[in-house]
Structure formats: structure tokens, C-alpha cells
């Protein structure tokens, strides 16, 4: 693929982002907020102080991990809508270890991470087995499992794991501090450096797995054309299950970060919606691991920063979601048109 082939797509992306910015500004203006000031407030809300940067990074980590997992399942041609459930399953497994496991952080913390990965992987494998053995579309299977995982959390929070004397949906007891995901004191605040490291390592792992390994190459073949892959002798089902397990493990670690790094307890809405948001991140990133980190940072900055809009301008913080949606729709639309146009020109110029 040469640069001349790519540039129309890059141009389309830039043009789409520009159009999205204009529309977002228009929306802000209609809502009675001066657009430039609003943009400034969003930036300030996300990156205005060391504390705010720490918060933003802590929210960025699970989104990047879930997105990295989704890159793997997308490579296998799977729409892993069950990613939300996999985050939740990872959170539950990590909570179990955090609640039950005695001992020092050197033992408990790694175990919560491993448990989260296993929980997410097993939950994902359910969707994978439904798909490969039961011929249940992974979108529907995954969606069903999402609801099941959510139900399970609510049950645990108000049932067996409820706080002493009260049964509310406010969450379990706070874990003991030895089970918390460690942070590092930097610039006078607690920076989640370990979480950020995991996100970066997870992304690099996925990038090199898909780019440089036999497993990744075969996975891509299965995802792009399962029939050809099968005729070439690749066991499709095994690769699809592996993709689910790996994608689920990464989502499970995202769930671990949510419980041991952010909430320090299990709450019903533990996934934070990062699974579904991750799907948008991966769509924007063109299904590649390369761009998920910056795109996720942008999404998180808008969500975190838009809470300032509420405080300072009286706008609902849901406005952040609107801005994200506008960007996604414009970019998807713009790149689709560019791709279509390119197909047309290739078709007209005849055989290449």
C-alpha cells in the first residue's frame, strides 16, 4: 500500500474531523455556550492539574485495554459486543481475589490482575463457543451475556457481598488497601503509573501479535475470509476461540483496573460503558492497535472534561457523549465515502 493510495482516506479523516468540530461548535453555540470557551473548559477539566491528569489517565487505562482486546476479536472478524460483560466478569473475578485473598500487595495485586484476565477470557469464551459450536451470532450471544454479567454484579452487590447490615446497590465494602492497584506519587498526586503501563504493554502486545506472528497472520486470514482460510487448512474455530479468549482477557484486566484502581469496591455499573466506547475507538482507529491510545485519550478527555461544562456553564455533562457521537458519525461517514469513491475509480480504470 503506497502513500498515494492512502492519502484520500487520510484527507477524508481530516475533513471529517473538521466538519465534526464545526458541527460540535454549532451545537455548543445553540446550547448557549461560547464554543471556544467550552473547548478551553474541556481541556482544563481533563488536563488542568496533576490531579486531573491522574483522573484522566485512570479512566483512559480501561478504555485502552478494552479497545486493544476488541482489535483482536475484530481481526478474527468477530463483533465482540460482549466486551462489556467481559469487563464485568473480570471485575467480579478480581473483586473475589481482592476480598478473599490475605497477604501483601506483592501477592494480592498480581493475583487480582490474573484473576480478572481469566474471568474476562472465560466470559468471552462463552460467546465464542456459542458462536463456533452453536452457530449463535456473536453479537446476540455477547449482548445476552452482557445482561447476564450485569445481573450477576447486582446480585453479588446486594446479596452475598453486600455491606454489613445494609443491602444497597451502592456497592460492596471497600477492599482493604493491600488489594488496591498501586499508584506512584508524582507531581504531588497519586499517578496510576502501573495501570498506564499495563495499557501500553497490552496495546503493544496486540500490535506485534497481529503484525509479527504466525498466530496473528492466521487470525487475520480467518477474519477476512473464513472460507479461504479453511480451504488453506487453517482451523477457523480454534482461532476464533483464541481471539475471544485473548480479547476477553484484556477486557477482564480493564475490569480489574475499574475495581482495584478506581472504585476500590465492586459496584453494579462497574464497566463504565468502556466496552461500547471501545468499539467506537476501534472503529475510528480503523481496526488497528496503532491509533487506539491517542483516540481513547481524546474520548476520555471529552468525557472527563465535559463535567466542567456542567459546573461552569450549566450544560448537562451528557454533552460530552454528544460530541463523541458527532465525531464518530462524521469520521465513519467520511471514510466510507472516500473508500467508496476509491472503489469506483478503480473499477472504472479497469483491471489493476
Amino acid at each position, binding site marked *: *500500500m503506497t502513500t498515494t493510495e492512502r492519502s484520500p482516506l487520510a484527507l477524508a479523516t481530516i475533513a471529517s474531523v473538521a466538519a465534526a468540530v464545526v458541527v460540535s461548535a454549532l451545537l455548543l453555540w445553540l446550547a448557549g455556550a461560547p464554543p471556544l470557551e467550552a473547548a478551553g473548559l474541556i481541556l482544563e477539566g481533563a488536563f488542568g492539574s496533576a490531579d486531573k491528569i491522574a483522573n484522566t489517565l485512570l479512566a483512559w487505562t480501561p478504555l485502552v485495554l478494552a479497545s486493544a482486546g476488541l482489535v483482536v476479536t475484530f481481526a478474527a472478524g468477530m463483533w465482540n459486543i460482549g466486551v462489556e460483560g467481559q469487563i464485568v466478569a473480570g471485575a467480579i473475578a478480581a473483586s473475589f481475589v481482592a476480598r478473599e485473598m490475605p497477604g501483601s500487595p506483592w501477592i494480592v495485586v498480581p493475583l487480582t490482575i490474573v484473576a480478572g484476565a481469566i474471568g474476562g477470557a472465560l466470559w468471552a469464551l462463552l460467546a465464542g463457543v456459542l458462536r463456533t459450536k452453536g452457530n449463535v451470532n456473536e453479537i446476540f450471544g455477547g449482548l445476552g451475556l452482557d445482561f447476564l454479567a450485569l445481573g450477576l454484579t447486582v446480585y453479588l452487590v446486594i446479596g452475598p457481598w453486600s455491606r454489613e447490615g445494609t443491602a444497597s446497590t451502592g456497592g460492596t465494602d471497600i477492599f482493604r488497601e493491600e488489594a488496591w492497584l498501586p499508584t506512584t506519587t508524582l507531581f504531588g498526586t497519586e499517578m496510576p503509573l502501573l495501570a498506564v503501563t499495563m495499557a501500553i504493554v497490552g496495546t503493544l502486545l496486540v500490535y506485534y501479535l497481529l503484525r*509479527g*506472528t*504466525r*498466530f496473528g*497472520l*492466521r487470525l*487475520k*486470514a480467518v477474519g*477476512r*475470509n473464513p*472460507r*479461504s*482460510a*479453511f*480451504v*488453506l*487448512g*487453517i*482451523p477457523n474455530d480454534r482461532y476464533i476461540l483464541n481471539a475471544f479468549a485473548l480479547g476477553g482477557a484484556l477486557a477482564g484486566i480493564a475490569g480489574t483496573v475499574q475495581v482495584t484502581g478506581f472504585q476500590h469496591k465492586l459496584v453494579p455499573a462497574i464497566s463504565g460503558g468502556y466496552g461500547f466506547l471501545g468499539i467506537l475507538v476501534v472503529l475510528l482507529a480503523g481496526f488497528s492497535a496503532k491509533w487506539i491510545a491517542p483516540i481513547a485519550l481524546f474520548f476520555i478527555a471529552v468525557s472527563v472534561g465535559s463535567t466542567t461544562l456542567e459546573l461552569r456553564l450549566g450544560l448537562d455533562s451528557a454533552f460530552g457523549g454528544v460530541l463523541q457521537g458527532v465525531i464518530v458519525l462524521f469520521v465513519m461517514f467520511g471514510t466510507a465515502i472516500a473508500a467508496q469513491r476509491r472503489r469506483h475509480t478503480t*473499477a472504472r480504470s*479497469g*483491471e*489493476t
Partner: protein
Amino acid sequence: MTLELRGIHKHFGAVRANDGVSISIEPGTLHGILGENGAGKSTLMKVLSGFIEADAGEISLDDTTLDLSSPADAIAAGIGMLHQDPLVFLQFTVLDNFLLGSPGSARVDRRAGLGELSRMSEELGFSFDPLQSARTLTVGERQQLEITRLLWLGAKVLILDEPTTGISAAQREQLFAVLRRLAGEGLIVLFVSHKLEEVEELCHSVTVMRSGKVVGAADMPVPPSELVAMMFGKMIEEPGRPEPMIGEPMLELSDFEVTSRTTAIRGLNLTVGAGEIIGLAGLEGSGQRGFLDALSGLVPPDGGKATLDGIDITDLSYRDHLGVGVHYLPAGRLEEGLVAGLTIEEHIALTTREQPFFIDWGVAEANAQASIDEFNVKGLPTSTAESLSGGNQQRLLLSLMPGYLKLLLMEHPTRGLDIESAEYVWSKILQRRSRRTSIVFASADLDELLTYSDRILVCFSGNIIKMLEADDTDGEELGYLIGGKERS
């Protein structure tokens, strides 16, 4: 109400599916469209029924030029198409299928529809239970329902694409009687078929297509030998068949049975020697594909036994077939062989055996370049599969084959290739033969079958009806047999 097609052109990439087709048909005519697979019949019918738009050309009915950009336009203009697989929604009732696609308001008037359906079907001599689910209908009955519906929608031109595949003899008779009557009432019936006998029996006139062009038009009756000659072109005497080099038995089939939607092979006994080449003749959908699928293990056979070099392969999975030295090249190069979006070097890396977990892209590129040089592929290691021409895709597929094979199965190995590429592909295949590989290939090209096969199996209606020694037969006999007739 004359139907006229003038200068219809339709290209798919470099393939000229229709290359300036002009046909004129008078009202009240049962008109046959004959041609081998890939002759352009289906494309032409799809253009006429609005499924695809022609690149150039004009269609007019009754001196009115039609603008057909969708099937809805076509039916509104009075052109209805009955597809080979009748487009019936199985989960709907017969009545709902009948009403589907009817114009009018959003509200569906089932009561009125019921009356129309019974009136129309009685007139045509069909009987349906309107409230039954369409799932209970046979293929023949679905066809009858579809014909009833098209006529109710006002079809004045009725197109039937291979309508007799999969229906019973009685339903065939009934269908032909209805078609004759409709023609008698002034309709134009276009009957697309590759079965000579049916065209002879039914049609008033016929157009023969080959390679996207009209190569002949005639009023029936026409001697079948002339039709065969038109369909397959002038028979070129095969230029020096390669010397046979048949060794000890390699593939042995006993009481082999394959049944599927299109295949009904029963009790086949066949021994293929090492280095022997077996050609499968027959029009598409006559059972060749099912046979190859069963030999490759993609579909398990329904009975009998298959051994390869003494190993029982009857119940082995497809992957195990690959393990014992079977290789399969289906016709769809980008559908069932190559992966669009992956490059040549990725394909080479994908199929290289005994590879470490991490791919050394430097080595992969070198391997890809070596394959490109050896197999004369016009492309770079970084060219994607879909950017290659058909001939180069086939060369790439050949380069992906493992070094030693016991049985090579191929479906249309040279379809769509120019002569040079086709000869190159065969030179590579013949190299395999000299290394004791047994070869079974299906082809629609009679010259190819006669040139390269040692023996030819003729498939018709899902079964293998004849086994011929390639030396003792010629294109004329094959042409007859493919059409389901013995040479008289």
C-alpha cells in the same frame, strides 16, 4: 409488443460478460437462450430484469424504451423473472408471498389477495393452500407460486432461468403446458437453459450465446448438432495430447456415494492411477462440485469407501485430507483460496509449513519473491491478492501448494484466463503429474478436457452418466452428453 435488446454491454472488471448483445423477440414466442456457463446468459437476463444495470445498450418493449434500474422498474414495465432458486420467503405463508411486492397502499388487503390468488391459480391449473407456510412447498410449487405472482403483477415478458432444475417430471410437464398457453395468449417467454432437449421440445426460436456475444439465432427446429456447434464454437483438434503416464492405483473409490442439493452420485467405482488425469465434464451444477467436495473431505461422502495410496480417507476431515497429501483448488479464487486484503508475502507466510511463532518478514519477503519469480506472478511481494489479475491469482494459488501431493483436485483451473496463462497453469499441473500426483479436475472447456484428461467423466443432473477414454471421444460426443443426449 416486440421485446428488443440493442447493443447490451456489461463488463465486470476486465471480463466482458455481455459484449454488444442484440436480440429481438415477437409477442407470443417461446424463445430459448442457449449457451454454456459463462456465455453471458445470466448477465443478460439480470440486465433485462433490472437486477444489474448495463454499461451501454437499450431495451425496449412495444417501441417504448425502458429505464430498468431495479427489479421493481422491470416488473412495472411488465418484465418478470423467475430465478433458478425461486425467491420465496420460506417463513411466510403462501398468501403473504403472493402479496409481497404488490404495489398499492401500506395496508395489505389479504381478503382481496386471497380471491386473486385462487382465481389466478385456478386459471393456471395450480393448486395451493394459501394459508400454509411456504416451507411446505416443493421447489416446483414455489416456482408455480412465483409464476402466478409475476403474472398477477402484470408480467408480459416472463424470464425463466434454468427452471427445470430440481423439479419433478410431472411438474415439468405442467410447467411446459402453462408456458405454451401463456405464449398462446401473446406473452413472451424467455427460456434460459443448457438442456438441448428441453429447448428442442419447447421453444419456437432460439438465440445461442458464447463469450458474451450472440453467435447464432434460429427458428426451431434446428438440428442439435448445429446447436452444439454454436454453443461450443468450432472444435479445434487437440494439439498433441501429452503422453499418458499412469502408474499404480492411487485413488480408489468403491460404491462411493455423494448426495446433496445438486449431486446424486451412487455406487461409483473408480480407480485413478498415480499420474492419471481425470476430467469432469458437464455444465455447472451437474454434480462435479459435489464430487470434488467429497473427494477433498469438505463434505463427507454418504456411503462407500475411498482410499488414497492404501490409506482409508473416507471419514477423514478436510484438514486430515490435506495431511495425507490431498490439495483442492476450488473455482472461486478470491472466495475459496486467497484472502483479499492480504499480500502475496502474507499468503506465502500463511501457508509455509514448519514455521516459528514469530514471522521473519525479511525471510517471508524473500520467499515471496522466489515464488513470484518461479511462478511468473506479475506482482510485488506487497501486492494484495485482489489487485492481481485472474491469471496471476491462479499462479499464486499454484505457488501455495505443498511440494508433494498424492491427489490434486481442481475446479475450472483456467476459467477466465487468457491462452498464455492457461497454458502456463497446465505446464505446472503436468509437472505435478510427472511426480506421480493423481489429478481430478472439472472444466466447462471441452478443448481443455480433451487435451489434458486421460479419462473423462461426464456429469449430468447430479450424476456421473458416462466414463470416456479421452482418446476415443471428440468434442461433438461430449457436447451431446453434456446436454444429456447420446449421439444418435
